[in-house]
């Protein structure tokens, strides 16, 4: 990871290698590119090798970590992609026309286009709390999580997704932290933390997650929090002002 490495230049070179191999079976372009860009030589070689060769299977330490990541994708990763997609659909990013009429157009999510739309009216309920936060703070979820204490991206997603199982005291605490960090009034956050948002109900899934969390403890367990952080949030379980 050289300081001088221009990531965009490298990415474009890697894209050339990838397309040359996958589209034309060209295995020698890396030599040409490495000659033209010797500073990226090792990156180009390694990338091509990774394209052609599989990583080793059944390597204990990696296997266990990857199994956990697989579960994380199923429990939180999908929600992260959904939240990002819903937000980005305010201005659709697609680069080309759909080849076919999407059979699911009727499922299109009626996302409120009010950028600062704070009104959590019934028809605006599809805007989740994390979407609301991202719009109001104009920051990505990881940045938001970083600024708040004792939270992770996964925790924010889970709270946003299942506010109905989050104790009142916990919701108050997290809404207060948001208010302190960005001046967003507690009641505005609460507008999104009173009921499960309709846009993320399990009924809309083709296949359920492993299982939706039924209790706050289960939610905490899925939120990639440390034991200390879990203990922190549990202290607010029975506190409500």
């Amino acid at each position, binding site marked *: *990871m050289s*300081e001088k490495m221009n990531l965009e230049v*490298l*990415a474009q070179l*890697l*894209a050339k290698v*990838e*397309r040359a191999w*996958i*589209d*034309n*079976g060209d*295995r*020698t372009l890396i*030599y040409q590119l490495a000659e033209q860009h010797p500073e990226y030589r090792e990156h180009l070689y390694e*990338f*091509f*090798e*990774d*394209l*052609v*060769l*599989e*990583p*080793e*299977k059944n*390597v204990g330490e990696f296997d266990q970590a*990857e199994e956990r990541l*697989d579960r*994380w*994708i*199923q429990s939180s*990763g*999908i929600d992260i*992609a*959904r939240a*990002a*997609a*819903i937000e*980005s*659909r305010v201005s659709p*990013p*697609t*680069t080309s026309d*759909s080849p*076919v009429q*999407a*059979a*699911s*157009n009727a*499922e299109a*999510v009626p*996302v409120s286009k009010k950028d600062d739309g704070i009104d959590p009216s019934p028809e605006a309920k*599809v805007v989740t709390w994390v979407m609301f936060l991202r719009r109001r703070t104009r920051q*990505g979820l*990881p940045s938001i999580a970083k600024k708040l204490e004792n939270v992770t*991206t996964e925790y924010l997603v889970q709270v946003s997704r299942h506010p109905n199982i989050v104790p009142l005291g916990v919701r108050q605490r997290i809404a207060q932290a948001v208010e302190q960090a960005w001046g967003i009034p507690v009641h505005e956050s609460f507008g999104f933390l009173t009921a499960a948002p309709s846009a993320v109900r399990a009924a*809309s899934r*083709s*296949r359920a997650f492993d299982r939706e969390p039924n209790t706050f403890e289960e939610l905490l367990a899925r939120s990639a929090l440390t034991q200390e952080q879990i203990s922190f949030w549990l202290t607010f379980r029975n506190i409500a002002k």
Partner: protein
Amino acid sequence: MSSEAGQLIEQVFQALPPLGSDDFLSHIETARVCDLPPEVLVRAFRQLPADSAAAEAVVRRLFRRRDGVWEYVSPLVAYARRQSSKTRQCTYEDLLQDAFRRILEALPGPRGDFAERSWNAFCRRELIDAWRERFGRRGERLPREESLEPNDEDKATQPVSSAEAPPWHAFLEPNKIIMIERVARRVLASISDEFVRAVAREAWFRDERPNISGRSQDRVSLTSLFSGKSRFQIMRALRHADAQLVAALLMDPDLELSPDVSAFLRKMSARPTRLSDSAKEKKNE
């Protein structure tokens, strides 16, 4: 992206069942990796309603792991393994999760446009960014005693699957051996680095593939043959050469992907992800 590449992806995309239909969901679930390029999945995801079951199914497929194999992020995983080995710490899971998160967040937005054209290059870029975010551009947040440079001995303990692949003699019929040796000699001649070429020659043309290191009465090791080089350097060279050989074999028009050849390629850890490989397989079925 070249127009040819664009056409290929376009063709597969156009051949998809109507986005969001039951047929689409079934296709996304069952299509082989080599018949369904990741760029097509990304494009479908970016066009589907954000909260639809179909969009979710597409993301699940992109990140599907079956029998310990990630179908579309294997190159990313291989790279993350090597990167994490540089820190001597249990950062692998964190680093890969950071990269996954970045990818998931970027896919629907402007950055995801790149993924519609070159999925693996896009993933690699996100992982490099994740690494920088965690450790700093110069690795200044790495634990003090750690170096950014690869540690030879550590790297040497990293498994390189192809290093253990046996020579083709043990697997193939005589006519296939001749054919593969012809391809191997052609690949050997095309490798410009003298050391890589020498390692490949020793590994490919002995009756029995040498071990990387170790002492054995029966087998010579590559570290003894190349005494001035470290295990890491030898493994690195061998991996580079093996990738070139596998690529050349996959592309050879005369080499039929018969069961024994396919088995051999699997032993070499070849990734069957190219559309033309799929066509070749079908032709030979």
